[in-house]
């Protein structure tokens, strides 16, 4: 049967459940799309066509014989190439690990497989989820499907490009300072950084232990809810894994948010990291939609400057990353890409006292954040200061030049979802962040879903710059 170019994960799941869509046809249609488009997008660094079709045939048989596993059964996905896959190379897009083949799946990858997803391949990333966009790595940087001269954001760049282009229906990302939300914002997706500890990082190449999160990226908040359901849960092998109940996220998606109290951190994007006028305007219009849906919106949540949150997170991130890579950097410095290795030289200049002071500052900032937002169910701020820049116009030491709008919630550990809230004059997506209380992903996704259903942005798809 003919499969549409674009389907959300939830739409495909409903069709598969009713047996109106064959997982084999769906997987074949995505493989055909990858063959046709990914030469320009570079989202995959490895595809698994034979394995994927074999798994799709198994899924089809299981579903036909009454062994339907749930809404992820038969759904084609991709994994960022820092998620270990047993018997399949996992490289972090680095020469350092170019030939590495893990023996076990990452816990999150394994859980998604058990839920019935079908792995189409491994998706490109900035080197070790940090160094990019780079042109001196084993695989080239991904391109933005909305305009291939533009950056996807990073580091989960391949997942972002592949979902936006309809090559997969969802995928995984990791987020240490914004690596899910940044690329999701610049490519018009929904991307969720869950609460620290909700999704296992076992088998995910680390960047910075105290800030690393794994999470879903997809076209809609509903799709993210379905993927999160497959990924979340306690893992004793991850020292940071939280022992908390995992609710039914899809049940929260009622489309209704009347009575929710929303606070807005305006100074982050209006004075600290000044967003483009069209970004500010898009967020203002979105706040009007939330009001219209019955939420109350308080426009003036005041925190320490964004720079403080960003600096705190950056010091922790690069110090921990340097500790992970120190021995290899000394032995094989020039085998790393230039962006990664030069950023690590700056990290090497930090002292032990700098790291401890950042960890002390982190506690202060988290305490401040929780006090300032105690009266709200959700907090909204910008995801990025503007739409995607050209890929050849990204500073080598970003985000030191401008404080990251996403890092504050890695510092505090709260769940944060990016959703698309409009488009720039030149047709590139604009995003906003919806931040919730710890382990209250259900309310975050509820608000994202209600907003998406109340607006028309999800109907617009990329044109590949043509």
């Amino acid at each position, binding site marked *: 049967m003919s499969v549409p170019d674009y389907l959300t994960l939830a739409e495909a799941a409903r069709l598969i459940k009713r047996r109106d869509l064959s997982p084999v046809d769906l997987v074949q249609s995505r493989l055909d799309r990858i063959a046709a488009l990914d030469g320009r997008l570079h989202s995959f660094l490895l595809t698994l066509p034979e394995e994927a079709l074999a798994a799709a045939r198994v899924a089809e048989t299981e579903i036909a014989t009454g062994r339907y596993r749930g809404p992820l059964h038969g759904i084609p996905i991709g994994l960022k190439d820092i998620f270990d896959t047993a018997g399949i190379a996992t490289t972090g897009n680095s020469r350092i690990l170019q030939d590495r083949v893990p023996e076990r799946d990452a816990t999150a990858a394994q859980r998604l497989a058990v839920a019935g997803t079908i792995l189409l391949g491994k998706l490109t990333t900035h080197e070790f989820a940090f160094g990019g966009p780079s042109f001196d790595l084993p695989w080239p940087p991904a391109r933005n499907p909305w305009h291939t001269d533009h950056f996807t954001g990073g580091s989960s760049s391949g997942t972002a490009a592949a979902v936006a282009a309809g090559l997969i229906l969802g995928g995984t990302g990791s987020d240490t300072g914004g690596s899910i939300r940044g690329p999701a914002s610049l490519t018009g997706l929904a991307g969720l950084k869950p609460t620290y500890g909700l999704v296992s990082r076992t088998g995910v190449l680390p960047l910075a232990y105290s800030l690393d999160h794994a999470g879903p990226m997809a076209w809609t908040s509903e799709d993210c809810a379905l993927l999160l359901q497959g990924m979340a849960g306690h893992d004793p092998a991850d020292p940071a894994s939280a022992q908390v109940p995992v609710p039914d996220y899809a049940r929260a998606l009622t489309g209704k948010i009347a009575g929710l109290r929303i606070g807005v951190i305006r100074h982050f994007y209006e004075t600290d990291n000044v967003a483009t006028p069209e970004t500010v305007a898009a967020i203002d219009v979105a706040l009007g939609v939330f009001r219209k849906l019955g939420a109350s919106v308080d426009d003036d949540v005041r925190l320490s400057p964004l720079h403080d949150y960003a600096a705190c997170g950056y010091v922790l991130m690069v110090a921990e990353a340097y500790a992970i890579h120190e021995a290899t950097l000394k032995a094989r410095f020039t085998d790393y890409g230039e962006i990664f290795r030069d950023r690590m030289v700056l990290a090497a200049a930090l002292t032990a006292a700098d790291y401890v002071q950042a960890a002390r500052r*982190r506690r202060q900032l988290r305490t401040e954040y929780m006090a300032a937002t105690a009266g709200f169910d959700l907090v909204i701020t910008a995801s990025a200061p503007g739409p995607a820049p050209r890929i050849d116009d990204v500073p080598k030491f970003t985000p030191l030049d401008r404080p990251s709008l996403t890092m504050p919630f890695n510092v505090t550990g709260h769940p944060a979802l990016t959703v698309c809230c409009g488009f720039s004059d030149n047709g590139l997506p604009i995003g906003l962040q919806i931040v919730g209380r710890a382990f209250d992903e259900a309310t975050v996704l509820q608000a994202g879903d209600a907003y998406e259903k109340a607006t028309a942005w999800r109907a617009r798809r990329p044109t590949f710059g043509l």
Partner: protein
Amino acid sequence: MPAEKSAAENNAVEELAAVIARTGLAVPERERADILTAWPYLADLRARVRRDPGYADEPAHVFIAAGEPLPS
């Protein structure tokens, strides 16, 4: 004629050389000028994470001892 370097720039050059000597990282000469352009950010990062904490202000991730069975 190239402009004379400021004291801060000279300090940065010396600090980078010291980091390279201490760590043994084989930083190619051609990349050092690039790294130096980012050197001023270090002072800002340090200033922002040092906000006169009190002696008792603990780091965010402290070790929490879990209970273990006592030896019988």
